[in-house]
Every structure is written in structure tokens, then in C-alpha cells.
């Protein structure tokens, strides 16, 4: 049999963690293989080893039946292996063109031959149905386009084996579709693709073959046509997932009201325009929409991180428009930001330190000595331990740096803090399950519904429509900074929502 990739008896020992434990995988040429498994299962580690970024402690790699040893990604590239990382490896300050050719620049005498590079890249784009302005700076491009740049970057290097580590975590459904089209195209050209994801629909849609990992080991391997989502989920988590929790019927009073809220940007454009919305006690409002249409701004303006240029925000009928972030946070507006690494957590800090972030000013974490107020470490640690227990955060101790937690567990820390430290009246959750494994997703979803059932109002922003449907009582769609529809979740279909999101439809009389 002719395998493109064989990784045999690979083990990888990090200080404190055995990330890969005697893993063997074989991948056929021209196939699309999905690597799935819970957070921290060792998927990224395994792929980093294949890409030469990490050296295996033991084990052997064969590419096209030839044994190889990689000392750096240069060696992997030489063997026509390319990788698109979970966190893009792009230089925002440079142009698309420069990013693509970086490390493999064509030269004419001493200079970089930009013309030749441009021609080549345009050709590559054409044959893969991608169209990106090559002179644009990466920083000016949306994530989905950046993703494409990453793919072009690997194609430009002439790779035959392409590794994609959670490429869809930050993509919109539309962008994901585009990506899948590209993947199928590549696969039809005979390229081998290894794809890491936590989204089982994607697995079913795009792959030929599935490898499941848990705790550093391969625990299952199957052809996609032989399995289904549910079986796969069981494989991954090792047990059946609990069903989504029932919703209680709740009639509540308004918690948060936005009246004509607008934000005008420096360039004169509106990122939010005349937003009117109300969320009641026990109501989950899901914001759907293609990212970049103001969802982030909406969350931030309610959380108090940006000021509206116009309009009013009321919390339980009190005007809080001029209250800053800190005041709102203490008054019960919790916010789970989309980017946990940049915003939600201080990665170099311990779980305990992170567990009070923002709430560290609350009297319950302070003690008085000689009339001065100091942080009370005992109480902080207790809180952290409590959170770890309640949320089943996998960690050696509350003093562990959050940087050493897996993505799902990091997310749990944020959620625990935002819901357990202060009783939130309103929970804003942006992409609450991004990059999180299905076990944790199920946990988080159920937890949010539980909060709702106990009368917390929630605003959920997600690019994952399934998530929106699972969680929401009401769904609103943002398009170019405006709310174009607001509907009961059980009265709308995905297809209809799609039309609103694309901007091709608009509700006539949005209630309120």
C-alpha cells in the first residue's frame, strides 16, 4: 500500500505531560483525513511533529515510504509538507504577496523577483478559485481571507501533504464552505489533507477517513462512510453526551435595553446603527450574522468597552450609558469575549489570579489590615478551587498557569469566572465554544441554559448557527451594523436566517 504519511510509535513528552503516547497513524495518498479528539488530546502536538516544529521523543516518520527525520519545518517543507496553524502564521504588517513568498522568495540576481512571484501566485489562485488582492496588507483582511492566504502560502510551496489545524474555528459558515471547496479541489489534484476540527458536521462533510485521539493515544480509526456524528461523538468523549437541557417557561421583566445605539468609526462609517433591542429575564438572544457586521461591537458596547456615539443603554431601567466597563461589570453585566487568549485571560497568570479578573475590586476578595485593603489570597484560592470543582476544569492545581491548560479548559475558566463570581444579570457570550471540544461544548451549552432557567438574560454571539439555534429563545441578525430581523427561534429556519444574514432580506416591522 502506498501511504503519503506514516507516523509510527510516536511519543512526545513535555515536561509534565505525555502529549503523544505511542501513536501510530497511516494516511493514504490523496485522502482527506480528519483528526479529532478532545482538547489536549495531542492532535496539535502530533501535527507539529509532522511539520518538524517539535521533535518526537521516540518514534519514526515515513513520507511516501521513505523514513525521514525533521529538524525544522524547513525539512518538512522539503518533503512537501505544509501546515496551516490554528493561530495564523502571517505577518500583518506585510502584504499578501510578501507573506506568501516569505521563506521561498524567487530572486533575480540579488533582488526578490516580485513580478515572477505575483504571476505565480495569481496562477495558483486562479486554479483554486481564490481571489485575493496580492498587494493588500494582511492586517486589512478579514480572517477568512487570511485563512486563504495561508492555504495559498502552502500551495506556493508546492506541498503535497497539507495539515490544517482547526482551520474553521474562526471562519464564518460561508468561509468554511469556501474552504471545503478548496479542500476538495486540492484533494482531487491528488494532495493529501490532514484536518483537525472539533466540529463533527465538518468531519462528516469533508473527510474520507477519521482518526480519533484521546489522552495522547489513538483510540479509534474509521472510514467516514462507516460512521455517523453520534457514534463519533461517543468515540471522542468516551461516553454518551448528555442531552440538551429543557427550557423552563419564564416571563421576565427587561434586563437590558438599547435605544438607538450607534457607533460611528473614525473613518465615518457606522459599525452599529440605531440598534434597539431588549433582553428580558430568562431570555437568550442569539445574534447571528456573518462576522464583521458589528457583532463584536455590539457585545463591547453593552459590556462597556466602547462608548456609543449616540443612544442610550439601560440596565433594569437605569441609564448606564455613561458607566464604564468596571461599573457595569460589578452591576452584573458579564462578558465572555471571543478571544480568550487576548482578552479573556491573562495567559501568564494562574487560574486563581484569573478567577477574579475584573471582580478583584469586590469586597469579598479583600481583607483589611491596619485600615488598608489587601487582596485576600485565601478567599481567592477558595473561589478558584470552587470553580475548578464545579466546572470540572482539568488542571493539577489552582496555581497552574492558564497557559498550560487546554483550550477547552481555558474557556471553562472564563465562563466560570463570568458566571460564578458575581451573579450576572446579563451574560454576554461571544463565540463561547470556539475551539472547544464537543464534551465541553455540551457542558457549556447546558450551563448557559441552566443560567437562563434561573432568570439570567443572555446575549449569545456565534458564527455557528447550530449553537445559535441550540441556545436562543430569540434570534436577531446583524447586517452592516443594523438589526435586520428579530424572530422567535422556533419560528425561523436556517435557510431564512441565511437570507437575512446575507443582507438580501429585511424584516418589515421589527418589534419594539
Amino acid at each position, binding site marked *: 500500500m502506498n501511504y503519503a504519511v506514516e507516523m509510527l510509535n510516536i511519543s512526545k513528552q513535555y515536561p509534565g505531560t505525555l502529549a503523544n503516547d505511542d501513536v501510530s497513524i497511516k494516511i493514504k495518498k490523496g485522502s482527506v483525513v480528519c483528526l479529532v479528539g478532545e482538547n489536549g488530546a495531542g492532535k496539535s502536538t502530533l501535527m507539529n511533529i509532522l511539520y518538524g516544529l517539535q521533535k518526537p521523543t521516540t518514534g519514526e516518520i515515513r513520507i511516501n515510504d521513505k523514513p525521514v527525520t525533521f529538524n525544522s519545518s524547513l525539512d518538512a517543507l522539503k518533503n512537501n509538507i505544509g501546515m496551516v496553524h490554528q493561530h495564523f502564521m502571517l505577518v500583518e504588517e506585510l502584504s499578501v504577496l510578501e507573506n506568501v513568498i516569505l521563506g521561498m522568495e524567487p530572486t533575480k540576481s540579488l533582488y526578490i523577483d516580485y513580478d515572477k512571484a505575483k504571476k505565480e501566485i495569481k496562477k495558483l489562485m486562479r486554479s483554486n478559485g481564490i481571489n485575493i488582492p496580492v498587494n493588500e496588507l494582511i492586517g486589512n483582511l478579514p480572517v477568512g481571507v487570511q485563512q486563504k492566504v495561508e492555504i495559498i502560502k502552502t500551495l506556493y510551496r508546492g506541498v503535497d501533504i497539507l495539515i490544517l489545524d482547526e482551520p474553521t474555528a474562526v471562519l464564518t459558515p460561508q468561509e468554511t464552505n469556501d474552504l471545503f471547496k478548496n479542500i476538495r479541489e486540492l484533494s482531487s489534484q491528488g494532495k493529501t489533507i490532514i484536518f483537525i476540527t472539533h466540529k463533527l458536521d465538518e468531519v462528516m462533510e469533508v473527510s474520507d477517513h477519521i482518526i480519533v485521539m484521546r489522552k495522547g493515544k489513538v483510540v479509534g480509526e474509521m472510514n467516514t462512510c462507516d460512521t455517523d456524528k453520534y457514534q463519533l461523538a461517543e468515540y471522542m468523549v468516551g461516553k454518551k453526551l448528555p442531552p440538551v437541557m429543557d427550557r423552563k417557561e419564564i416571563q421576565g421583566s427587561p434586563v437590558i435595553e438599547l435605544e438607538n445605539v450607534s457607533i460611528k468609526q473614525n473613518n465615518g462609517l457606522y459599525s452599529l446603527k440605531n440598534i434597539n433591542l431588549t433582553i428580558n429575564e430568562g431570555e437568550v438572544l442569539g445574534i447571528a450574522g456573518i462576522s464583521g457586521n458589528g457583532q463584536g461591537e455590539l457585545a463591547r458596547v453593552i459590556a462597556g*468597552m466602547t462608548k456609543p456615539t449616540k443612544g442610550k443603554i439601560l440596565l433594569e431601567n437605569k441609564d448606564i450609558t455613561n458607566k464604564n466597563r468596571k461599573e457595569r461589570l460589578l452591576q452584573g453585566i458579564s*462578558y465572555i469575549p471571543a478571544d480568550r487568549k487576548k*482578552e479573556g485571560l*491573562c495567559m501568564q497568570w494562574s487560574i486563581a489570579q484569573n478567577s477574579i479578573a*475584573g471582580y478583584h475590586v469586590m469586597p469579598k476578595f*479583600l481583607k483589611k489590615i491596619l485600615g488598608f485593603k489587601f*487582596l485576600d489570597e485565601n478567599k481567592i484560592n477558595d473561589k478558584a478551587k470552587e470553580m475548578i470543582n464545579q466546572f470540572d476544569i482539568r488542571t493539577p492545581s489552582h496555581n497552574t498557569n492558564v497557559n498550560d491548560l487546554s483550550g477547552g479548559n481555558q474557556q471553562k475558566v472564563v465562563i466560570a469566572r463570568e458566571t460564578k463570581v458575581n451573579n450576572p444579570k446579563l451574560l454576554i457570550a461571544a463565540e463561547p465554544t470556539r475551539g472547544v471540544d464537543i464534551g465541553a461544548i455540551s457542558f457549556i451549552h447546558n450551563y448557559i441554559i441552566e443560567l437562563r432557567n434561573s432568570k439570567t438574560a443572555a446575549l449569545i454571539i456565534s458564527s455557528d448557527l447550530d449553537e445559535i439555534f441550540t441556545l436562543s429563545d430569540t434570534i436577531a441578525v446583524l447586517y452592516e451594523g443594523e438589526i435586520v430581523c428579530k424572530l422567535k427561534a422556533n419560528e425561523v429556519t436556517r435557510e431564512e436566517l441565511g437570507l437575512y444574514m446575507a443582507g438580501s432580506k429585511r424584516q418589515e416591522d421589527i418589534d419594539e
Partner: protein
Amino acid sequence: MNRNKILKELGKPLFAIIISLLIGALLIIPTGTSPIEAYSLLFKGAFGTWQGFCSSLAKATPLLFTGLAAAYAFRAGVFNIGVEGQLYFGAITAALVGVYLPALPAYISVPICLIAAMIVGMIWAFIPAILNIKLDISIFITCIMLNSIAQLFSNYLATYPFKGELPIGATYKIGENSILPKLAGPMNDLNLGFVLAILVAIILHILLFKTKFGYESRASGISSSFSKYIGINAAKRTVIIVMISGAIAGLAGAEQVMGVNYRYISDISNGLGYTGITVALLAKNNPLGCIITAIFFGALNNGAIQMEVMSNISRDLISSVQAVMIVFIAADFAINSIKSRKKNNLKTKNKKGDNIC
């Protein structure tokens, strides 16, 4: 586990010191002195006698202040390389206030001088901070320029408008009541400033690690987006932090005037601010760690004087050795070897850990 960690923490600098002393020995041999003799003089000078030890502490004092000033700013994410300039203005201020203040009891006039120095250090630090926030000018470049300006201007003040009785660019002696009392006899520079510096270190430690303010400072030092998320006004924070740092730097200058020279003398700092940055960084910006690194530096400097007086080795040689030492202490050679050694232990440990989860 804990003991291993302590051993590792101690072993590293020890290794660095030994290596650099060996390198130093190679340099000493051509001078005709035996390295062993030289080093024993160095050590004796630094720690051998009570007076010598006190002198080491005296030399450590300004470095502790500047180190703390730098460490505090670094912790909060601001690269305050302007410590040197803030020190100069602190020094000249303490001198002028000390000279021209009417005679008051010491418990009034000493604090007045110190506070004046702190305020001026603060104001001088405020400039780069505010320029950074309002006009987005790099704190780094303004600080470097302001350092030179502060030094030249202080020298000018001491040479012209406020020149004292000495035939050099120096102010008059400060009043008796503004002097920081000596702690180890009249001929030892160790003065109350050292105690003050230790106090500042402890206060900073508490401020950084035990208070809301410190929590927020450290947050903004690590990630501006995170600190914004938890409701901190990063701009305002930067200004406050740099100003506190400037105040401590001002104290460094005040100590040199009120405890050592009793007047401002041109070029009084001679790079204390820059050395302070190293003191801070070697201590990983930990205020209490700064006490150790500052004393280490102070001891080396002081021991070097002793060695120079007692042998025919000049102090330059020791500053070269000291430089090598600093680099070796800062370097992390152990990374690879320790990792590979631990590998086996961990494998078993990890398996056990699995059950716990």
C-alpha cells in the same frame, strides 16, 4: 521538588559566578597578581569586615532604588529607561531644598527633601508618559533624550546659579538637619537611605502582589487588551506607574545627596540608572529580588575598590568580570540538560496524574 527548585535557583548563579571568576582569572594572571589573592581581597573587601560589608550595602543603596524604579515600571509594562534622568533631578532637587530650606528639625526637613525629590522625579517621568499617551511618542526615545537634558541641566544649576563654595560644579552643603544619618560610623557611606530602600522594596512588593492596584498594574504590564477587558484605563495607568517609578528614581538621587555627598556634585549618578535596569532585570523585576541583586552589585563594586587599593589590579578588570558574570547569570544554560534529565521521572509521574483527573 521544592528543594530541587531551590537548589536549581541557587546553583545557577553560583555556576555563573564561578565561570566568570575563572575567565577573570585569565585576565588577572598577566598583571602578575595571583587570582586567588585578588579574589580573596575582593571578597574580604565586600564581606570580610563589618565596615566593608556596610560599605557594600552603601554601594547597593542607590542601585536598589534605581533597580526598584525600573522593576516597578517593567512589571507594569513600561520600559522606563529614564531612571537616570529622574535620578539627576531628584538629586539636584534634594540638594537645593536641603541647602536653602530654613533650619527645621530633622524629622521635618529630611522628609521635605525626600518628598521634593520624589515630586520632581515624578514630574520628569510624567513628560515621557504623557507624550506617549497623547502623541504616541516612544517612551524609550524621550527618556534617553530627557536623561541627557536632566544631567546637563542639573550640572548647569550646580555650576552657575547655585554653585557652592567648592571650586567645582557643586552646590553648597545641605543643612545639617537634612542629612540622612549615617549608620556605620562617620566614614562609612551607609546611611538611613538603605533602610528606606528596603522599606520601599517591601512596600512595592505589597503594592504589586497584595493590592488591587498592583493586580491591575501587573495586568496592564502583561496584556493591554486583557486589562482593558477587566476595566482598567491603560493610559491613565501608564502615567501613574511611570510617575511612581520616577518618584523612586528621585529618591535614588536624594539618597546620593543627603546620605553620601551632602551636596549635588556634577555628574553625580555616573550610570546608576542604567545599572539599576540590570539590577531589576536580573531580579526578574521582583522588588524583593532586587534587594539581593543590588547587594550583589554593591558588594562587587565595593570589593573592587578594596582590591584596587590592596593589590595592583585595577578596578576595570573587575567591571569586565562583573559584565561576564551578569551575562552568565542572565543566561539559561540549564534548559536542555535539565529537561532531558527529568524526562524519565515525568513519564511515570504523568501516568499517576492521569488517575487523579
